[in-house]
């Protein structure tokens, strides 16, 4: 049938890269390469002569790939960002999922679609996991600060844990701030006073 597609994934995080590569390989018989570092990015991509280049939208090195869209770029075949081509319907979904794709001119939407569908699903999952991780981390940090603030109040005012938390919460509500912010302020202030 048709020849294999060569796909380059630009991704620094090894685990994330593996997850994306595995998903792409499951979606069809493709050659998938991962490039991790920014140094000489355009040149290293060109060496693979890829049909599709996938990169996280939040990756600042993305601008280095813009050079590929110029005919005089390091790829001999001109590359377009797929979002403006015939497969334009995929654009919104891709951007929301956090992936941008650079596609060699002339690649038909029929061949591109399964790759993009897979990439979009996988990037969406990666993004979700990243957001969840960041939020979990933040929640943990906040809990630590709130615990310290509670401890300070318990000692200073000789009250129990529930009363200390109630006091924090009341103060937060009165001031229209979050409990974590009030706790943070208390911890900082007591650090200064001690």
């Amino acid at each position: 049938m048709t020849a294999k597609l060569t796909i380059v994934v630009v991704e620094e995080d090894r685990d994330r890269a593996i997850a994306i590569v595995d998903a792409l390989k499951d979606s069809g018989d493709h050659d998938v390469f991962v490039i991790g570092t920014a140094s000489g990015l355009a040149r290293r991509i060109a060496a693979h002569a890829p049909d599709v280049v996938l990169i996280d939208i939040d990756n600042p090195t993305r601008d280095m790939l813009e050079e590929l869209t110029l005919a005089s770029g390091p790829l001999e075949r001109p590359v377009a960002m797929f979002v403006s081509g015939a497969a334009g319907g995929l654009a919104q979904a891709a951007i929301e999922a956090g992936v941008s794709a650079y596609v060699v001119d002339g690649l038909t939407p029929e061949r591109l679609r399964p790759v993009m569908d897979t990439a979009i699903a996988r990037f969406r999952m990666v993004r979700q996991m990243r957001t969840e991780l960041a939020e979990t981390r933040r929640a943990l940090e906040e809990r630590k600060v709130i615990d310290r603030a509670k401890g300070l109040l318990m000692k200073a005012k000789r009250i129990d844990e529930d009363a200390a938390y109630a006091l924090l919460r009341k103060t937060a509500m009165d001031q229209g701030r979050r409990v974590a912010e009030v706790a943070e302020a208390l911890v900082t202030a007591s650090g200064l006073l001690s």
Partner: protein
Amino acid sequence: MKTVTLPTGYMPLVDAAPLIIAQEMGFAEPEGLTLDLIAAPSWSSVRDMLAFGRVDAAHLLSPVPVAMAMGLGGVTTPLSAVSVLSVNGDMIGVGRALEERLRGIGYDFDFSDARRAAQALRRVAGGPLVFGVPFPFSMHVELLRYWFGATDLRDASIEIRTIPPPLMAGALADGDVDAFCVGEPWGSVAVDQGAGALLLPGSAIWAFAPEKVLAVRTDWAETEPHLLGRLMRAVWKAGRWLAQPESRTTAAEILSRPAYLGVSPELIDRALTGRFTISGRAEQREVQDFVCFHHGAATFPWRSQAKWIAHRLSLANGLSSADAQRVAGAVFRSDLYRRHMAGTDAELPGASEKLEGAIRHSLAVASQKGRLSLMRDAFFDGQFFDPDAQK
């Protein structure tokens, strides 16, 4: 007051100030707007967020909407540059190796004479020179190409390579690039990290270069004229505030916040005051109008500025200059600027095109209020650009 929230994209740079200040100093609110400022990790990302509707307005490199209208690059959604956010503000610098060689031939880093700088650079350039820039379509690239083309560097072997500005100091240290042209604070960051020295401000090449524009989707400009007008007025007032010397300290503090630029206010202050530390030896240089947000009708989107950009892009890409200028003229929306800024204190020039580069000294010209002073806009080689004459 109830306001409409307007998602607005920007790159964390000193010249994003008019948008950040419009929100932070309360110029947006009286216009019934809240700017939801979304920092982007790359210029492609700003462009895509705007083109595909994630944001409704954006801080954008002035050549980007022009290049898009010419069909260059990957995305072709029609964008309108409704005003110029900032004039000038680019910084050209060299890595340590070139700095040492330049000092070796007695070059004094005068920070003003573009021709002398090119001569010196030509003398010390052993092999090919690699210049890092933030984006293929940028005033940085256009100023470099103009400078190379009109000096001893015209036959030097030079490559221009895209490097995200936060990575520029590292790229200099690794030898991936020999020199750079970036927006502040990134030139000063390279100096402070010991990666290189500053050679010239962009204004040493073109004294009045439209650097960033306020861009919107052209169809949005048509369907949301009232929102657009309110946005333009809020941003214009922010620019006027930024132009007052007494605003600088506050502006530097606000921009330095982690949510915006996340660098020290002192670094930002250098760009706002035009007083730079240009090397690891702590040499100081001062430049007038390093970045300009207001004076001399700085925010007016001259169609001739867009045509200059289009002309230069056409030369670099082997396209017809006449065709390029025709589409580009419609990208810089002096018509919308006139419509939405009428009735404000904004200066509205009598014409929408000028001979770019023809003003050697500040010049009084006709405006609707009859008292507009245009600033020097000369190119370093004394040439000027007549949009009608270039075919």
